């Protein structure tokens, strides 16, 4: 799945996160994560984000995340929503969203 336009999903409310995606200028996948709990859960958040992007076959793009203490399931959902909104596909492939 390719990110072809800028898109956002989520909010900056507590227990949520804001995900911004944009096409890559460099052809790389750049992930930036800011979180109030980065010291405790930074690695876990990064793992959930990269795993979610892997399943969606997103290999390039800019992914910026501002986390407000979201659970893993919320992180997965918001990353998926932002990528789907910014991609060239408007139909969900549920096998890749599991």
């Amino acid at each position: 799945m390719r990110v072809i336009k800028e898109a956002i999903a989520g909010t900056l409310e507590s227990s949520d996160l804001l995900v911004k995606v944009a096409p890559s200028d460099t052809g790389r996948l750049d992930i930036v994560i800011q979180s109030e709990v980065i010291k405790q859960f930074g690695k876990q958040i990064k793992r959930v984000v990269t795993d979610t992007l892997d399943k969606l076959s997103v290999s390039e793009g800019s992914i910026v995340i501002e986390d407000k203490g979201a659970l893993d399931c919320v992180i997965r959902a918001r990353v998926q929503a932002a990528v789907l909104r910014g991609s060239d596909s408007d139909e969900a492939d549920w096998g890749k969203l599991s």
Partner: protein
Amino acid sequence: MKLRRSMLFVPGDNAAALSTAFVYKPDSIMFDLEDAVSPREKDSARLLVFQALRHPAYQEIETVVRINGLNTEFGLKDLEAAVRGGVDVVRLPKTDSADEIHELEAHVVRIEKACGRLVGDTKLMAAIESASGVVNAVAIATASPRMIAIAIAGFDYLVDMHTKRSGGSEPELFYARAAVLHAARAAHIDAFDVVYGDVNDDEGFLREVTIARQLGFDGKSLIHPRQVELLHRAYAPTPQEVEHARRVLAAAETAHHNGLGVVALDGKMIDPPVIEEAEMVLQRAEAS
């Protein structure tokens, strides 16, 4: 027998609510993709609910998803997310006829087969929100063996009836409540009463719970977590009712042991409906 006193609405686009709703221990949690979610957030909410359904915290509680109507651009997508996410019950809003349940069931079967779920695993319930729905309540309640409950939704119904809530004994809702209850009883499924919108008015809420309970509703749809405990307390049997239920079951056990079909307790006959009622009393007492 599944206890269904409280069905707590959780807006499908509210991450904080989805992350915490289980701690309030309602009997069922209903993730709402319909009225609580704005059209531009439907896609994101659908994914949130899909992921929440798979969270370990929601494996121990009955989950319900209120999808958008199948006549909208969102309904089928919501249904895909709910069934594939493993929801226990799909709630169809604004149900006017049995045909709508048949259509819903056909789509559920298709999705269950496509995602490898056991066919028949996903249960259904309908919300009645119009005069047509009330008139067709029996047909709706009996439209499928998957049906587990039917609910009356007051706001849209009263608009359809050209009236509004009056408070007090609510005569404007009496016919609809009675019709939905009779449909539920004829179909042997549960019945849910309307939501009470003023979350700060405990007195009004409890007055309405008393009416619903006395009429025979199994439970009530709730829009705020603080209503869960209030409702459970109101539905809790009194110590006298619990003691009587225990004596009924003990008498029935003795009769069974002695090979007797019926037995009397305090001069009153103990038969299967009385035993069933006693079991329900003890179940409610245990859960309260």
